[in-house]
């Protein structure tokens, strides 16, 4: 079994079969991270470059660990410490890496469409680890995985995505992903952060968190970029938090089996109050754990997948 795509650039490109293949494969790899020796020889001899041209902690470390647990050779490039700071173009970076015989490039970039562009200039497999406000496919895949593990299904769940949807690649990928898998989605934010066109992506737009919270199975909180205040998307962080912060009172109105998710990093008391991040409803740490398994699955499937001896022992 293999993916219908050679690069993982966007959820939009994936079929439901692709998504199920990734999730099923992740299940195998999840077990490895629980062992004493967290390593399998699956991708030994493969070279993976993490090209992170925008700051990241959790995603980069997650990819690095995923690659290393599969025994691949990993090179980390960040924009600060590379020729990109000297003005080297993405095209030249791509050609240079290709000449060095890289198997997979995991790229995060500030501009939408960058991984599509990278794909034009290299035969290496490409994983989009976030391109501007466009997509963050592995985040959506790990979110699907986490929900499926916890709630045993995705179809017909009501997902509530709360926060700065307009500027969020996580929101976009999750909307595409959860919709493909049959969930219902509401986006909850002030109107300035959720343009009406989002309805044409097949989601309901709601401005009142309190009203919709009793209907939701999965509360998915997005990080608020605090700079948005200076661009007048909302008058103050205080007002935003008053309306949209998930606190104890709001949580009381939620369904009994509701789960809370957040891609991280969290702005405590803005998206979620500090006293509920550790509550059992929160599966935020499970998301992080799933992330490694899902990324191992994606690396494995893009590197060729198939039943390689020693692939999964």
């Amino acid at each position, binding site marked *: 079994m293999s993916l219908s795509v050679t690069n993982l650039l966007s959820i939009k490109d994936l079929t439901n079969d692709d998504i199920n293949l990734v999730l099923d494969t992740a299940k195998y790899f999840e077990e490895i991270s629980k062992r004493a020796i967290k390593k399998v020889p699956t991708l030994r001899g493969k070279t993976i470059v993490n090209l992170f041209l925008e700051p990241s902690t959790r995603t980069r470390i997650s990819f690095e660990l995923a690659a290393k647990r599969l025994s691949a050779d990993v090179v980390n490039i960040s924009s600060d410490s590379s020729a990109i700071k000297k003005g080297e173009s993405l095209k030249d970076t791509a050609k240079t890496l290709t000449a060095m015989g890289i198997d997979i490039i995991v790229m995060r970039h500030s501009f*939408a469409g960058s991984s599509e562009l990278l794909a034009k200039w290299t035969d290496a497999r490409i994983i989009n680890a976030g391109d*501007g406000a*466009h997509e963050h496919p592995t985040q959506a895949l790990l979110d699907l995985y986490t929900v499926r593990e916890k709630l045993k299904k995705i179809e017909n769940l009501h997902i509530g995505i709360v926060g700065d949807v307009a500027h969020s690649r996580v929101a976009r990928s999750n909307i595409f992903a959860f919709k493909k898998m049959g969930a219902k989605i509401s986006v909850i934010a002030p109107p300035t952060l959720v343009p009406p*066109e989002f309805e044409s*992506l097949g989601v309901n737009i709601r401005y009142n968190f309190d009203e919709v919270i009793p209907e939701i199975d999965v509360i998915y909180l997005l990080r608020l970029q605090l700079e948005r205040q200076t661009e007048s998307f909302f008058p103050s962080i205080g007002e935003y938090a008053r309306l949209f912060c998930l606190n104890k009172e709001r949580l009381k109105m939620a369904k009994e089996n509701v789960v809370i998710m957040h891609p991280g990093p969290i702005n405590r008391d803005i998206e979620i109050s500090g006293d509920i991040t550790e509550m059992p409803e929160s599966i935020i740490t499970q998301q992080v754990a799933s992330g490694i398994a899902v990324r191992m699955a994606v690396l494995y499937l893009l590197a060729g997948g198939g039943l390689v001896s020693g692939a999964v022992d």
Partner: protein
Amino acid sequence: MELLIKGGKLVDPSNKQNSVKDIYIKDGLIKSVGKDLGETLKKGINAIDAKGLIVAPGFVDLHTHLREPGREDEETIATGTRAAAKGGFTSICCMPNTNPVVDNKSVVDFIKEKARSEGIVKVFPVGAITKGLNGRELAEMADLADAGVVGFSDDGESVMDSRLMRRALEYSKMFDLPLMVHSEDKNLTRDGQINEGYWSTALGLKGMPSQAEEIMVARDISLLSLTGGRIHIAHTSASESVDIIRKAKNDGLKVTCEATPHHLTLNDEYLRNFDTSGKVNPPLRSKKDIEALIEALADGTIDVVATDHAPHTLSEKEKEFDLAPFGVIGLETAFSVLFTELVKKKLLSFSGLIEALSTKPASIIGVKSGIKEGSPADLTVIDEKRKFKVEDFISKSSNSPFKGRELEGKVIYTIVDGKVVFEE
């Protein structure tokens, strides 16, 4: 210098030409138009066999960027005029956003001299509305008018200050020259990359709403009704703009406008793969906007087709979408794209297309055009049946959204002042 164009079908509604006739040209002028002229002329005359071909008045482009002075890496007057000739254009207006900006006579003189010595079609410079396109101080319009500009424009920039725009309109009345306005509310479009709509939402690219154009078109026309003067609205792209312009014309205001071949045929779905060949300002809009533009071109609300030919080098366009500059070339493909997508699909008549490409733009800048005795011999000869693939460009740049397209209808000869400047 004599030239005989034999047996072509003349299409020039303004001179009631719509049949097969010969054209005899001498010393740069059309000397006679009629059937079987070859019989009465001496043998051995230079002749073009235009049998099966169409002969139209030479095309006039009111909106081109020749990039010289300043960006000769993208295009020069030499290469740009050759690209124009390939597209059937015998006259082109070049926009002032060069480096230095065309805000004084010396730059106009430079362009005219380059055009005379290195160009092969007629070049009519447009002067800036504001000094350095800074949007704050008026350029010396009288100086520019003396130098021979055919209009004023801050194209690329928008005159955001309404008070200044008012002054510009008032002042320009002295010269009876149009302000060719780039109508865009720059605050609404800040950081914008493509049309605001489904695709900007799905792709995570910042959108530029059509209201940004609508607002400034309304503002410019409103000021026009206050001050008088002439306005020509550049690259009209939104259906809302069309409605405002239609009403303004019905109210008798002196407004004309243009639409580009790319806005008339490509919608924002083109951008689904982040192809910067479609990154242009104003952006490619929705299907609904295209329908409104085509309807407006057919009913005359949109007066002319103009290319907004905007060359950019490969390296500049081969960047992350946000970093790539706005602009597409269009001189070489304008006629063929519109013939294929509008005329052949019966959305626009052939004569309507010819008028929008030649007669009407010529009248806006006061350039002589038409197939009649005494007119300058500026002619475009077309083969309606020729099919071809858009591959190589004469322009120094190749940032065209039509690259690789199969088109029908091609310019075969372009004649300027009786001289063949392009031959297929």
